[in-house]
């Protein structure tokens, strides 16, 4: 479980006199490197035309699609990812280490490669896609469902890792206590484990949602770039950039704002350095 530890708050002031410049200088450069581009966005924003651009139907459509798909992707990740995290944290099975490694592959895989892989499997002629298409009439490639799938593929590891960490950190003796009171594993999971790791799940879900919101590579490869259908905010930023720099800046500002709001919401409650 992630805990807020008041005593763990940074206390650098006391030791600032001995902080070596060889570390401070690169640290300040790193900070500037991270912050300056974002400041650049704000400086270059077309503030005068902002209200009119924000209400541009194309912008609103892309924003709504992004919010919807990333939320659906997060729900999908919760539904499948929490049980996977539980399995990894609580059940000993052969090859568990390999499974854990596999789960993290989408974290390091270039999203374009993920998109291509999804296309090969879930595409209309794909290994699973062809069967899904014929049996259920379900088509993923180049549809909004495909966007959800691509986002879930890329974002799920964030959730699984966060929840597995929370489960490992939770005291399993509460689960033993539940068992001695007659609760089976499902009841124990539902009534004891889940509430105990709820903060970890919430943190994982927010990270997962943020990652899904920013997803670009896998989405454009697997779902394409159709306004209103698969063109999410990041895709819109990229496409708009080719003709209209100011438009792209506005779209980026919206994504920046959403990210900052998420971070602010998370900071105190869940993401606190141990």
């Amino acid at each position, binding site marked *: 479980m992630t805990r807020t530890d008041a005593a763990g708050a940074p206390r650098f002031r006391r030791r600032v006199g001995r902080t070596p410049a060889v570390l401070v200088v690169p640290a300040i450069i790193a900070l500037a490197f991270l912050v300056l581009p974002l400041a650049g966005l704000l400086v270059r924003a077309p503030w005068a035309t902002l209200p009119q651009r924000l209400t541009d139907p194309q912008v609103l459509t892309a924003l709504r699609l992004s919010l919807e798909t990333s939320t659906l992707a997060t729900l999908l990740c919760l539904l499948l990812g929490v049980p996977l995290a539980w399995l990894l944290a609580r059940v000993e099975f052969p090859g568990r280490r390999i499974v854990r490694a596999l789960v993290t592959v989408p974290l390091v895989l270039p999203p374009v490669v993920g998109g291509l892989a999804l296309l090969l499997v879930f595409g209309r002629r794909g290994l699973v896609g062809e069967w899904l298409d014929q049996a259920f009439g379900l088509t993923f490639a180049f549809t909004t469902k495909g966007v959800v799938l691509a986002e879930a593929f890329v974002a799920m590891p964030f959730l699984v890792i966060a929840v597995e960490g929370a489960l490992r950190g939770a005291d399993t003796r*509460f689960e*033993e206590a539940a*068992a001695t009171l*007659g609760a089976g594993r499902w009841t124990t999971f539902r009534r004891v484990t889940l*509430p105990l790791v709820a903060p970890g799940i919430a943190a994982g879900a927010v990270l997962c949602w943020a990652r899904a919101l920013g997803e670009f590579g896998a989405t454009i490869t697997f779902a394409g770039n159709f306004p209103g259908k698969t063109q999410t905010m990041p895709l819109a930023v990229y496409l708009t950039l080719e003709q209209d720099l100011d438009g792209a800046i506005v779209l980026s500002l919206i994504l920046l704002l959403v990210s900052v709001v998420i971070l602010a919401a998370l900071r105190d409650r869940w993401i606190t350095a141990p």
Partner: protein
Amino acid sequence: MTAPLVDSRIVVDRGAFRLDIHLRIDPGEVVALLGPNGAGKTTALRALAGLVPLTDGHIRLRDRELDDARARRWVPPEHRPIGVVFQDYLLFPHLTALENVAFGPRSHGTARKEARVVAAAWLDRVGLGDHARRKPRQLSGGQAQRVALARALAVEPELLLLDEPLAALDARTRLDTRAELHRHLAAHPGATLLVTHDPLDALVLADRLVILEGGRVVQEGDAAQITAQPRTDYVARLVGLNLYRGRAAGGGVEVAGGLTLTTTDAVDGDVFVAFSPIAVAVHLDQPTGSPRNTWPATITAVQRHGDNLRLQLDGPIAAAADVTPAAAAQLELVPGRRVWAAVKATETRAYPADA
């Protein structure tokens, strides 16, 4: 003799450590599993609860086989009619006291509303009816202990397991809670196994004591038997006696250091000799006359012990001796002083070692 409620042989391997005990618990009986830290007490309790698999042996409750290592039979904890009060209680932090107690009945299929009624009744019985809506972190240690007891009893287990139920409490609370626990255990129709390292808990709460050392049962019996005839140093220390093992021949028992202790009990062969620290007299010169056992000793430590002082004596045998503060002052009994220890034969008890 009635059929036992629990009949078990519990064998659990934990790395180099092996727990191997036979444990019988009769219906309605309160048994204390007493032993030093690391003796395997908690492991035995966890094995009974089904939280630790047996390496070998079996656990039978009434005529139901809960565990049988050879037949690879194992009933999971949730299907055993066994309640547990854990050492640090493990109350669910996200549930109120009432919901904690209602958890068991709910898991056994009782409807939510009914389970809450049952839970409220149990909280009343442990005197916490007005704390039903509190979360565990808002309860004191003693209150949490009572909620944990109510939670375990609310499923009406045939066997109640208590793991160091009073260890987490301060001395004052422990006194009250111990008395109250005694009342609840007496009212509990099922049997109880109490794991503790505190001899007082065991003597007050239990009908029978089973003493565990190094994964083995070294002695068992009721409080009177255990206190009268300890069979290991650990038990002797628990009940406050000096204990020696030796060979008896013709009224004398040869113990360590070449010393022969005279006793009045007629024994033969391998025996234990026990005597109380109060029976040990300390002299500056070798006492003469009267049938006394005497040996030279050196005082290694002096501690307060009730109204007296307890001296630790080193010599052919290590012994504890209780003297009054006045005597200690008069004789200048301080660590390092060489003295003579003396015990009357009538003050010693000798009993066979292999019984």
